[in-house]
């Protein structure tokens, strides 16, 4: 349409200009010239008609295309309405199986200073420890986890039994290996070589979690792990984060030492299931039972209290009907992101031979407790670059082995957080120990610890 108008307008304008500019030339136009102009006009008219036809065809095509576009849009809208939201594909997230390694590694420098003329130890890098935990998630409800301890000990002290042993030694041990089956939200079945919930220390005491490089003395009178089965879980109380936690288990439990000479001695490690033979007498057969119940009460983030009571009991010497039992009370308190206070009280009882080879008989009662306070200096809000990464730690622990040795230990130290999981720790331990198995030295420990 536009083209035709332009052409017509051009022709008209041409005629008008011709008439205006050359009003007296009409008479001078010859027939030939007139015919030539007439032909030109006819040709232009034909071109206009051709263009009009083309234009009409174009318009029809445009209409058809518009119609098709409308149909396509309708189809898209229909499909979009029916479409279900599809999560972004992520092979890692959706995978049923997953293998992950976590754990920690430590390097420690230890120096011991003898008290009252007794020998200490030369200061040395005494420990290098790599403790990976392998986690295999078979599906949403089943997890297999195993922890190993690959350890290099330096500066081993010779003993009466091994007078020539010293220097360094390397050990590889399995710290735990268990299968977890989450039956439902409240019940999890665990089986294998399990960290025992006698208190919380053995389950939450990995190297990079400890603010003091070594364990409280009283943990030496408890077994850290046990082979058996366990039912555990947590029941939330409301929506505030409170929960009641529980664990009930049966494990082989402490037993007698495997040797004919020492078969009457308690072995917390639990060599069990062996027959009493002339080669490796073992007086233990029946499993022990244990349980822990806890209450976790957070009143807001970084402010919480946890209390727990645990116990375990069983015969370590089935031949003699002698029991080993333990009771543990644990508590942890957090006030603000900066302050933490926690501790455990442990009491154990074990029946001994009569008359005892070591002069003791009847029920021996090793017991003790520890308390540890820590304060992050960032709480002082001094805005100093190095101070803000430091945490002060104090611990007091005591152990009465029930056989005449009493040890009190006061530890003062600190943690410097190089990153969130790389820590430099240092502490000095003052021992006050009396009795036949006294610890006659003070020591300091420096440790670099990394959690991964």
């Amino acid at each position, binding site marked *: 349409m536009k083209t035709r108008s332009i052409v017509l307008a051009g022709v008209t304008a041409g005629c008008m200009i011709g008439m205006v500019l050359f009003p007296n030339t009409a008479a001078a136009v010859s027939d030939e010239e007139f015919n030539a102009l007439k032909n030109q006009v006819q040709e232009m008219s034909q071109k206009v008609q051709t263009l009009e036809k083309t234009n009409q065809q174009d318009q029809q095509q445009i209409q058809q295309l518009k119609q098709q576009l409308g149909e396509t849009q309708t189809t898209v809208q229909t499909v979009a309405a029916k479409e279900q939201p599809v999560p972004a594909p*992520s092979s*890692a*997230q959706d995978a049923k199986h*997953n*293998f*992950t390694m*976590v754990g920690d590694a430590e390097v420690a420098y230890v120096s011991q200073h003898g008290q009252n003329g007794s020998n200490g130890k030369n200061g040395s890098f005494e420990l290098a420890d790599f403790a990976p935990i392998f*986690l*295999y*998630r078979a599906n949403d409800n089943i*997890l297999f*986890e195993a922890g190993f301890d690959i350890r290099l000990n330096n500066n081993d002290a010779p003993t009466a039994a091994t007078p020539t042993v010293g220097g360094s030694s390397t050990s590889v041990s399995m710290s735990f290996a268990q299968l*977890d089956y*989450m039956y*439902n*939200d409240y019940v*999890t079945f665990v089986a294998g070589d399990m*960290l025992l919930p006698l208190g919380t220390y053995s*389950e*939450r005491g990995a190297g*990079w*979690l400890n603010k003091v490089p070594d364990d409280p003395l009283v943990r030496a009178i408890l077994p850290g792990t046990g082979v058996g089965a366990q039912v555990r879980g*947590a029941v*939330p109380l409301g*929506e*505030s*984060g409170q*929960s009641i936690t*529980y*664990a009930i288990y049966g494990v082989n439990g402490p037993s007698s030492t495997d040797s004919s000479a020492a078969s009457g001695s308690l072995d917390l490690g639990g060599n069990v299931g062996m027959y009493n033979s002339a080669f490796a007498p073992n007086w233990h057969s029946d499993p022990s039972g244990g349980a822990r119940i806890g209450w976790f009460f957070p009143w807001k*983030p*970084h402010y*919480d209290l946890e209390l727990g009571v645990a116990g375990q009991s069983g015969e370590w010497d089935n031949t003699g009907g002698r029991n080993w039992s333990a009771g543990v009370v644990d508590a*942890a308190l*957090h*006030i*603000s*992101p*900066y*302050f*933490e*206070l926690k501790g455990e009280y442990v009491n154990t009882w074990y029946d001994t031979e009569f008359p005892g080879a070591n002069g003791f008989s009847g029920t021996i009662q090793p017991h003790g407790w520890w*308390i540890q*306070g*820590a*304060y992050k200096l960032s*709480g*002082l809000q001094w805005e100093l670059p190095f101070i803000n990464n430091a945490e*002060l730690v*104090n611990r*007091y622990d005591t152990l009465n082995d029930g056989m005449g040795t009493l040890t009190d230990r*006061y530890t*003062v130290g600190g943690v410097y*957080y190089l990153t*969130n*999981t790389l*820590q430099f720790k240092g502490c000095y331990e*003052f021992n*006050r120990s009396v009795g036949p198995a006294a610890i006659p030295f003070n020591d300091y420990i420096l440790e670099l610890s990394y*959690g991964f």
Partner: protein
Amino acid sequence: MKLLFKLTPLLIALSIFLAASRAPADTTAPKSKSKDSESATNAAPASVTAPSGSESKKDDKPETKPEKKLTGEELYTINCNRCHAERYPTEFTSGQWKTVLTHMRVRANIPAKQAKEILKYLQEDSGH
């Protein structure tokens, strides 16, 4: 030595005092909390007069607010930071976090629903 042992309870008491005095009012106060309290204040009509008699005594009692559902981030702070320093979501992939949370649910006896909320929070900003 004896002095050190006697100083222990004093040091602990001093730490508690420092923590209590220096502690922020609410270090991880969720935004929704302040929003809720603000909206509650605004919602109270200005023209309401205090009723008399027994009704006023009833109103003097503190209102029992419905428990606010904790977010994954808050639950993470509550359950995880009490034992170890913060682990960043980007440290593991989404699938690895699922495995780690399964492990921690058993190890630290974290209630299942809370563990799921924590997992969601960690997966949102995970390495993948």
